[in-house]
């Protein structure tokens, strides 16, 4: 009996790998297990080969394993594509009749999905629920959890459809119980305490986390142009827009998206836009407009592999250099790089606050792996915490008859009024301007304005740093280093090798770079290994540029796929 199991559901695009994955995730959540699920899909709507992989454990898990223990194939071509990925002693579930296979290899396990679905529910569509039940049977779950999970996933469907799904799952479940490998895949039962805590547990993916964070932060204007892997954020905000009174507008291009958001922010709304690298390229002039006009702006770059169109549905961390320096001219910005869905939620809220407090653009740098991966976490605080706006209140505004938008102050931050609230007018300009916002070419004023937008604001921002996460670094033999979505890999690799003195440092803010903190954490390190989803070790270079600290080695992956913890551990071991 293992403490964990990884299950991969694979098939063509359009076959419902995600539906089964979502249902299974709910089932395992209901049963009190921890899970980490991620998706690998091609940039197509039909055909090809996609998979959804769930890792289930009695302990919290945060990253993919190298090889799944069970692979469920929904079509014939998946069998050949996925066979090589199967763990030793794993099983590959196939539908021999449907796939027209002559014989079965030793690792294969035949389940007549189609035939059963027709018999039980009169529609082959229900194969998905059979698969769901099958897995539950193989790992030895109680069937009530399956019923619960199915009810949750299909809550919007008719009673009849739900019943058909439950019946199909039941048929799969019976088969699973009787599987020839029975003992091997049974999961330990979950303790009572954990089961009691289940109602307080949610499943969260990066896209939902950012959307919920934005809503929580009081975002009232959301605009974007669709681009994978950022699109889901817009979908989720749009789904709640009516209830939350949010304007969601699909822009004609990313240039429009960013300029609309800036206009809305200027006029008084909390505003946000999201995109991926290619769209971010188009937004860059807008980024510098937000900085010059000192208009708060929250932007998401959900990275995918570039250059150009790259791999639309895959993952990479290669925009780091770009986003910390994007935009012409010099100005203060913040770039966050959350490592988990939970971090992404809280960082999104913080991003709005920092953007408004400092009147600057704030970027959230994520990637496909984080956007589309699901984990279980304790329910987010859904209370109605007061939102601090850092603007001159409506009441106060009523008495203001004389106003300078860019009044020079020690902090570099000018009190921000909203047009039409105050009695005076205000001038805001993308040209260099004086305190009242009118265009100027005065050399002394130019210097003061640069200091305001750059030096003074940066000074304040250093007190607002999102602190790096660190683990087991005192007396470490090796310190693993990363940013963004590799947090789970760093955590699990360091935990696995804890006794061999491996620790990690993870940055969820890459700009302004936390130089002092890194010097404290890393100055005495014997060996630093950066783990990055890019081809140059961009974080390692940034660390060296900002602190002089050199890493000994970089583990780089730039094939568009995320790291798996087993492979990373294998690469680290020889260094110990």
């Amino acid at each position, binding site marked *: 009996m293992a403490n964990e199991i990884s299950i991969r559901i694979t098939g063509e695009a359009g076959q419902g790998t995600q539906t089964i994955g979502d249902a299974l995730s709910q089932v395992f959540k209901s049963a009190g297990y921890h899970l980490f699920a991620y998706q690998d899909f091609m940039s197509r709507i039909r055909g090809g080969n996609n998979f959804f992989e769930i890792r289930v454990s009695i302990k919290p898990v945060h990253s993919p394993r190298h090889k799944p223990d069970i692979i469920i194939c929904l079509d014939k071509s998946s069998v050949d594509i996925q066979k090589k990925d199967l763990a030793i002693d794993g099983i590959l579930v196939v539908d021999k009749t449907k796939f027209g296979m002559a014989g079965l290899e030793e690792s294969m396990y035949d389940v007549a999905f189609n035939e059963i679905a027709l018999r039980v529910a009169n529609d082959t569509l229900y194969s998905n629920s059979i698969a769901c039940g099958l897995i539950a049977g193989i790992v030895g779950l109680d069937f009530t959890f399956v019923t619960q999970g199915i009810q949750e996933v299909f809550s919007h469907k008719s009673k009849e459809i739900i019943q058909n799904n439950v019946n199909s799952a039941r048929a799969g479940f019976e088969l699973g119980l009787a599987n020839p490998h029975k003992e091997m895949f049974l999961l330990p039962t979950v303790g009572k305490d954990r089961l009691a805590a289940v109602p307080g547990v949610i499943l969260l993916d990066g896209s939902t986390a950012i959307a919920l964070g934005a809503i929580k932060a009081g975002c009232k204007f959301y605009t974007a142009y669709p681009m994978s892997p950022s699109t889901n954020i817009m979908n989720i905000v749009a789904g709640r827009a009516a209830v939350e009174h949010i304007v969601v507008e699909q822009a004609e291009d990313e*240039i429009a998206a960013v300029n609309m958001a800036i206009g*809305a922010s200027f006029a008084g*709304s909390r505003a946000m836009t999201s995109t991926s690298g290619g769209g971010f390229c188009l937004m860059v002039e807008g980024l510098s407009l937000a900085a010059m006009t000192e208009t708060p702006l929250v932007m998401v770059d959900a990275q995918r592999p570039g250059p150009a169109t790259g791999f639309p549905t895959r993952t990479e961390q290669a925009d780091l250099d770009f986003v910390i320096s994007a935009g012409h001219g010099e100005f203060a910005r913040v770039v966050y790089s959350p490592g988990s869905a939970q971090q992404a939620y809280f960082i999104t809220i913080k991003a709005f606050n920092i953007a408004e407090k400092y009147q600057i653009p704030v970027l959230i740098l994520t990637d496909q792996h984080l956007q589309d991966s699901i984990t279980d976490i304790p329910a987010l605080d859904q209370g109605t915490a007061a939102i601090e706006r850092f603007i001159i209140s409506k009441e106060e505004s009523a008495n203001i008859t004389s106003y300078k938008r860019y009044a020079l102050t020690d902090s570099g931050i000018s009190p921000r009024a909203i047009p*039409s609230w105050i009695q005076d007018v205000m*001038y805001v300009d*993308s040209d260099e301007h004086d305190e009242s916002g009118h265009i100027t070419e005065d050399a002394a004023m130019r210097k003061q304005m640069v200091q305001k937008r750059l030096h003074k604001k940066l000074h304040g921002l250093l007190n607002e740093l999102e602190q790096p996460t660190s683990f087991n670094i005192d007396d470490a033999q090796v310190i693993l280093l990363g940013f963004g979505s590799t947090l789970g890999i760093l955590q699990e690799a360091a935990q696995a090798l804890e006794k061999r003195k491996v620790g990690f440092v993870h940055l969820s803010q890459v700009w302004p770079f936390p130089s002092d903190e890194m010097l404290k954490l890393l100055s005495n390190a014997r060996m630093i290994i950066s783990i990055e989803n890019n081809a140059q070790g961009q974080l390692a270079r940034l660390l060296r540029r900002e602190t002089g600290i050199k890493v000994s080695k970089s583990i780089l992956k730039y094939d568009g796929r995320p790291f798996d913890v087993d492979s990373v551990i294998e690469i680290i071991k020889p260094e110990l």
Partner: protein
Amino acid sequence: MEMNDFKSSDPIAWCSRCGNFGILTSLKGALVKLGKQPKDILLVSGIGQAAKMPHYVKANCFNGLHGRALPAAFGAKTANKDLTVVVTTGDGDCYGEGGNHLIHNIRRNPDITVIVCDNQIYALTKGQASPTTDEGIVTKVQTEGVILEHLSPLSLALAVGAGFVARGFSQETDHLADLILSGINYKGFALIDVLQPCVTFNKKNTYEWYSQRVYKLDASYKSTDLSIAFQKSLEWGDRIPIGILYNVSKPTYEQKAGP
């Protein structure tokens, strides 16, 4: 409200006799008649000579990026419905760099008024062809004369579905002020293309050239017929119509987007 209530302290950086002065006078005249406080008016612009106009009026000003006045104006109007939003832009700013935003904001139909100071040239960058430059005009870039067909912005706007389409002439300040006021009072996206002599870089389309050609659409003109409006919008050369070519009511973005 009087003209003085909209007087800005910012010194004007245009050439003397620039057509923009007439447009500025008309804009202020329209605002006086509108009767709203300067604090409730927002002028949005991109970059160009025309785009400097918001600085020369006492009203809120958002002077954004070249070509991007419309998205910023859409965002501001949507976020703060109390603001009367007027865009002052140029032929390069609005029809060139920002052409895509023109098309799609006409489709959105936010309640904003767009005044295009159309001098048929890129003036701020010293005289290159714009989308409305007449064919054959020689510039430092178009050394053999412009070979691209001249864009008819009003036809474009009508084709895309604009509900309020007008043309003015910067010398006819009272007429233009009326057009601007009508545009502001129109509920939805109002496009006003204004013939604006650039005395420095456009030596063809001068005050005289326009004066000899423009004629006002009179009371007999029916501004609710799309095909007539379309024909009028294409009239260019010996005779150029000014006035409201098309004026029909349409649901605005705000109405369509709901509460």
